[in-house]
């Protein structure tokens, strides 16, 4: 029996790339964009439940939530994010934020594990980031500004 076409579709995740993680010279992410803290996962979003625009909007929402924090330092950091990059997806893209698309298999084939996505399609990837960051830079498909804004 042949596999139904929809089950043959590769699965992807999106990763939001901060301007400091973007290599403008080569139009690709920097290796540092894939180096999570040792005690944390790499933050990604399921491509079948979130659009690139929603992935960027999620970052803006996080910054806005920080404004409501009881912690003064967190409020200041939230204000700085919105001051530096704006409060719309259009401004974030204009100010250098990007989104890349990565096949889930690129992680699993290298021994990474993914936790279950939450209601927003967000999940964390755990594995040998340092060893594989160079490969992930090459594998990541860079979305155009238009694709990020669609």
């Amino acid at each position, binding site marked *: 029996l042949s596999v139904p076409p929809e089950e043959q579709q590769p699965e992807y995740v999106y990763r939001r790339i*901060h301007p*400091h*993680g973007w*290599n403008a*010279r*080569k139009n690709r992410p*920097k*290796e*540092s*964009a894939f*180096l*999570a*803290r*040792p005690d*944390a996962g790499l*933050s990604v979003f399921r491509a079948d439940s979130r659009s690139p625009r929603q992935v960027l909007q999620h*970052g803006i929402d*996080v*910054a806005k939530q920080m404004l409501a924090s009881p912690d003064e330092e967190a409020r200041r*950091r939230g204000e*700085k*994010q919105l001051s530096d990059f704006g409060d719309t997806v259009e401004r974030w893209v204009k100010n250098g934020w990007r989104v890349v698309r990565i096949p889930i298999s690129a992680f699993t084939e290298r021994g990474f594990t993914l936790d279950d996505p939450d209601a927003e399609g967000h999940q964390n990837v755990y594995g*040998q980031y*340092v*060893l*594989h*960051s*160079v*490969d992930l830079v090459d594998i990541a498909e860079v979305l155009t500004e238009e694709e990020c804004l669609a």
Partner: protein
Amino acid sequence: MSKPVIAQSDSRVKEVLREIEEYTALDADWDLEGAQPVDRGAADLAARLAELVDVNARQREVPWQTPVVGPVADGGIALTWEGTNRRVLTITRPGQPLALECVRKEANSPPVQQTVSVDGAMELALWALSGE
């Protein structure tokens, strides 16, 4: 007669040093994923490596390509050195003043990770830059 080493360092590495210094001003959580501020010691070690590679590349007549500089979420600095077919990632870490994590990658070969001294990292960077 050997050439004076430090005096040769000029503008081609200054941009790298400026970018490293710029990252030391980042706040905690600059990436909205819980990043730590860049550690002063990690930044200084990255700057030292960049200057060493610059000077030694001149002495050995290795072609120069400006490394890609990036802040790392744990407070380190990553420098990526790339030649035609080789790439080396060097990472300085907070609290590790003498050691760097490195990944070297040659076209069509799997990446190899190792921990090295700053001199070892410099040799790896030159290996990448000299790659045909």
